């Protein structure tokens, strides 16, 4: 059972109109692994991430989350309906570049919302979990605040707590720090580093090289829709196998 990868992507392909954004992507992420996804803009990194929870619908390929296929109901031989998709997505968490905290709810309510209204958890139980998670990300003192009063870094930390509240099999991070002021980036990366050491499975699309080097178990490099290098951080950063990655690291240094 511990052999089942948390996420298993096979031959994932997607086009937007004439443009092929993803070509035959293969990726396997084990439980507890942290995978960083790097690449220049337009390389397809975000699209790949968003295919995992079916926010984008692939053209070809299969994606399994903890052994179960998402997007297609194999038993019935048809695409998943909204209810089935929702069920699958409840087992993943996502942290967005734009935070996307729900503005009409307080910080605490944001974190409690999915457990109560998706999982049907009792409010008291959800509250306890939410409070603990907000403690973990360092936002306990802002429980009753509304999102519009928070800074970007604060919003993103709440957003991480919100994703954790559903006890997901994998947390998907879509450029979590790209929209933050430089001073705020650190507080979010710290939280993410702590999560990785606690054993959460994380797939992180990012530009933060230091983070990728320090925390990842795998680094994946996408270029024009293809994975051109996939290796451990030590190899990737110190001894890259491809010319393209070498250039990328030079520019990013």
């Amino acid at each position: 059972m511990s052999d089942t990868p948390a996420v298993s992507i096979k031959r994932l392909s997607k086009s937007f109109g004439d443009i092929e954004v993803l070509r035959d992507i293969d990726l396997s992420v084990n439980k507890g692994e942290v995978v960083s996804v790097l690449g220049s803009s337009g390389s397809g990194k975000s699209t790949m991430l968003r295919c995992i929870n079916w926010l984008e619908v692939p053209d070809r390929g299969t994606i399994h989350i903890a052994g179960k296929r998402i997007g297609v109901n194999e038993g019935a031989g048809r695409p998943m309906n909204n209810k089935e998709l929702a069920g699958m997505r409840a087992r993943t968490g996502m942290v967005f570049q734009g935070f996307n905290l729900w503005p009409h709810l307080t910080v605490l309510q944001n974190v409690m919302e999915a457990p109560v209204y998706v999982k049907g958890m009792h409010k008291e139980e959800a509250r306890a979990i939410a409070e603990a998670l907000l403690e973990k990300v360092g936002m306990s003192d802002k429980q009753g605040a509304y999102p519009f009063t928070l800074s970007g870094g604060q919003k993103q930390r709440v957003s991480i707590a919100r994703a954790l509240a559903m006890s997901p099999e994998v947390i998907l991070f879509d450029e979590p720090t790209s929209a933050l002021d430089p001073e705020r980036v650190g507080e979010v990366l710290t939280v993410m580093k702590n999560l990785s050491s606690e054993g959460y499975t994380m797939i992180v699309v990012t530009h933060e090289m230091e983070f990728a080097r320090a925390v990842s178990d795998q680094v994946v490099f996408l270029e024009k829709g293809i994975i051109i290098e996939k290796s451990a951080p030590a190899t990737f950063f110190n001894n890259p196998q491809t010319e393209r990655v070498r250039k990328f690291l030079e520019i990013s240094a």
Partner: protein
Amino acid sequence: MTEWSILWEARETFISGLGNTLLLFVCSIVIAFVLGCVVVYLLEAGSALSTTLRILINLMRTLPFLILAYLLYYGLPQLGLKMSAWSAGLLALIIYHAAYFAEILRGSRLVLAEGYVEAAKAHGFTPLRMFIRIVLPQLMIKTRPLLGNQLIIALKDTAFLTIITVQELTAAANSAQATYFIPTQAFVVVIALYWLISICLELALKWAGRFGAKRGFDYV
């Protein structure tokens, strides 16, 4: 007897008329609003009814309210569906204003940032739960002034029902002045009552505005 004391003598008629106006108003807008929300959800979910609903909404925007009331009260009996003036009036109010509520909410839905919806999807919300918990509250907060405006229009539309013999407030004034020959006084009182109710509505609207302001929603 002064004219004003005659008015006081006739107060039963006015109270009954006021009661009917308020009853029609409150019942119709509550049901109309719920119906409007359902319509918006169906449009969003892309149901088979979408085209029909869109046509119906646009129809209501080009028809006078009274014609709808006429249709239900005078026209339906010909098809075998008889209803009282009250029922026809109530139904007309509900259908007409549901269409306007739906249009107001739909306009706001079109400009709602997709990020909130994506975050809800990513956390496992089904379309219905997402609509009720995440989308609708934001739409209501954002369209508060337009919704409030529509409430006042609905209140005034109840007066049209005098014409199809519903005994609401304007009918009360009409009947009082016909009986007691006090047209000015009767209508002054009734106009003052309509004015009072709409001032109460506007105050309630302002108070509801704090709900949105507290959450940082920009509104005019």
